[in-house]
């Protein structure tokens, strides 16, 4: 470690830590000042754009612009000839097992099981730990897998699913547990019958911390007196959960659920590192990555577009939730 270089760079880091929020605060204050200069009637229509402006600019530059570029790219083939929608025909043709359909099917598995399991465990832990005094250490332990990079998570679960022939001492935790119960060890990730489930378990394990933290924050937002009042009234814990906690947390559950669904659609790292899509586990993002490395950017772009379009039902659901919350105000 080169200490002298470190000492030279630390002031830079500090300057950035202080300076960046300062710039942004200056922006918003300055913006508000400008808005004040306008007549009263114009203020409500101009003000929002100052607040939303930087976000929209960033998103437009780094997400919207490439999406259009990608959609455009999906109309060309490997040699840069215009081929219209034929890449989409390749990806979406051959239903049910050709093209991208196996990947789509697997993404649906992820969508349903990953989301549900993470939500259920996250909610369970959030509610349970709220009632015990040692909440913080428990939450930290459940959260820990999130702090580990996905590559390390794949490594952990590789060890968990490890296989040795029957009769040999097992090196994998799960097969070792099986041998305690006098069962034969078996393949997990390399067995197409259970491979998807094995990967999803690894993914869920790594991600529950995410749901836990956010749902816990929402749970803390429920006024304590509300819960106490319900308890004094004699309501059981389950009833309190169903009638008070769950409905009040619903908007956050929708947010966490939506994020999880979208992550499930984009699932990549775990699949890439553990199977690369073999054994019937391919997912859209992995398929896209393989196409990029060929390189077949046209087809890769088509898969990306399919992914983004697949999110639309989720958006419609969100819109309905949105409107419901607005109506209640």
């Amino acid at each position, binding site marked *: 470690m080169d200490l002298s270089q470190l000492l030279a760079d630390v002031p830079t880091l500090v300057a950035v830590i202080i300076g960046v929020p300062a710039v942004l605060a200056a922006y918003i204050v300055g913006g508000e000042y400008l808005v004040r200069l306008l007549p009263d009637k114009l203020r409500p229509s101009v003000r929002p754009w100052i607040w939303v402006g930087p976000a929209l600019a*960033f998103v437009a530059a780094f997400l919207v612009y490439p999406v259009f570029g990608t959609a455009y790219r999906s109309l060309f083939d490997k040699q840069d000839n215009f081929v219209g929608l034929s890449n989409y025909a390749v990806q979406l043709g051959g239903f049910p097992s050709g093209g991208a359909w196996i990947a789509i099917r697997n993404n649906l598995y992820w969508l349903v099981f990953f989301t549900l399991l993470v939500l259920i465990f996250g909610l369970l832990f959030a509610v349970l730990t709220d009632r015990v005094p040692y909440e913080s250490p428990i939450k930290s332990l459940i959260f*820990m897998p999130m702090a580990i990079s996905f590559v*390390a998570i794949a490594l952990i679960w590789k060890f968990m699913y490890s296989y040795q022939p029957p009769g040999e001492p097992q090196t994998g935790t799960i097969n070792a547990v099986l041998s305690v119960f006098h069962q034969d060890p078996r393949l997990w990730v390399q067995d197409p019958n259970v491979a998807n489930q094995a990967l999803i378990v690894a993914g869920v394990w790594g991600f529950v911390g995410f749901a836990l933290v956010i749902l816990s924050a929402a749970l803390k937002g429920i006024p304590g007196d509300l819960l106490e009042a319900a308890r004094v009234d004699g309501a059981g814990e389950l009833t309190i959960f169903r009638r008070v906690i769950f409905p009040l947390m619903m908007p956050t559950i929708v947010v966490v659920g939506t994020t999880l669904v979208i992550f499930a659609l984009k699932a990549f790292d775990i699949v890439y590192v553990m199977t690369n899509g073999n054994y019937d586990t391919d997912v859209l993002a992995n398929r896209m990555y393989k196409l990029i490395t060929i390189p077949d950017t046209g087809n890769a772009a088509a898969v990306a577009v399919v992914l983004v379009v697949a999110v639309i039902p989720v958006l419609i659901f969100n819109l309905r939730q949105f409107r419901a919350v607005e109506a209640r105000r």
Partner: protein
Amino acid sequence: MTIASEQVATPAAERRFSPEWIGQVFSKILLHAAVIGITLVWIVPTLGLLVSSFRPLEDFASSGWWTALSPPFKFTFDNYQQVLDSSNLGNSFFNSFMITIPATVIPVTIAAFAAYAFSWMKFWGRDFFFLALVGLLAVPLQATFVPILKLFLQLGLTPENVGFVGLWLVHTGYGLPFAIYLLANFFRALPTDLFESAEIDGAGTLTVFFRIVLPLSVPAIASLIIFQFLWIWNDYLVALVYVGGTPEFAPLTVTLANLVGSLGQGYQLLTAAAFFSMIVPLIVFFSLQRYFVRGILAGSVKG
């Protein structure tokens, strides 16, 4: 409260050894058992990794990690030693901070501004923009690399010229959809009466934002900081694409990934590397824990 109501009979559950009391004790035990039990099962994989990180390579493929917990103990610090000895560790550790901190601060701030506007201001196209934002969560990052890289090259935003600035901007762009989505949800949940009383008091937009909305949304902001921080801290691909893996600019993830040879030699070092890398996000998590407290809202509307 009248005096009469204080003379109510002791509730059934407070009478010792009553069925209700036993019921309560039992459910308390059940609760603790459930929490501790599930947690223990949950941490088994992490524990496995931790124990493995202290084992020599020869033992990895030949015996399960739990065998190391009984004699003969063959623990070694070798893996950690090699991680700490790896070239460029100090510099890349520092680089990770240089990348992660601004790339967390910028999107959280910008998202807070935007989320406030989305939840409490009315403007043309608000719902459309918001939904588009959520939809953009689905954009796979690999699809954005080439167009943005080209743009950066044209604008001269290369690592040689501006260091990590390009990476900060990119992470901001990538992180904004989730950040705004999350914060808008929490901001929207604040009671309307809060804003009404503030308006009556003559508070301006800035005051409401800085003095009311932000303080009341501390758990949400803390959550966001935790996630944004750890996603960028653990990021490998985006950094590799935009600033490259040369020793000068490489973050910790690149350096640690390079501990393993191209054919997988030295994979046992990844166990130690994972724990070494985990320390910082965990510290961030721990230090933000105190913001996850209930009752900030209590009493804020009355009076």
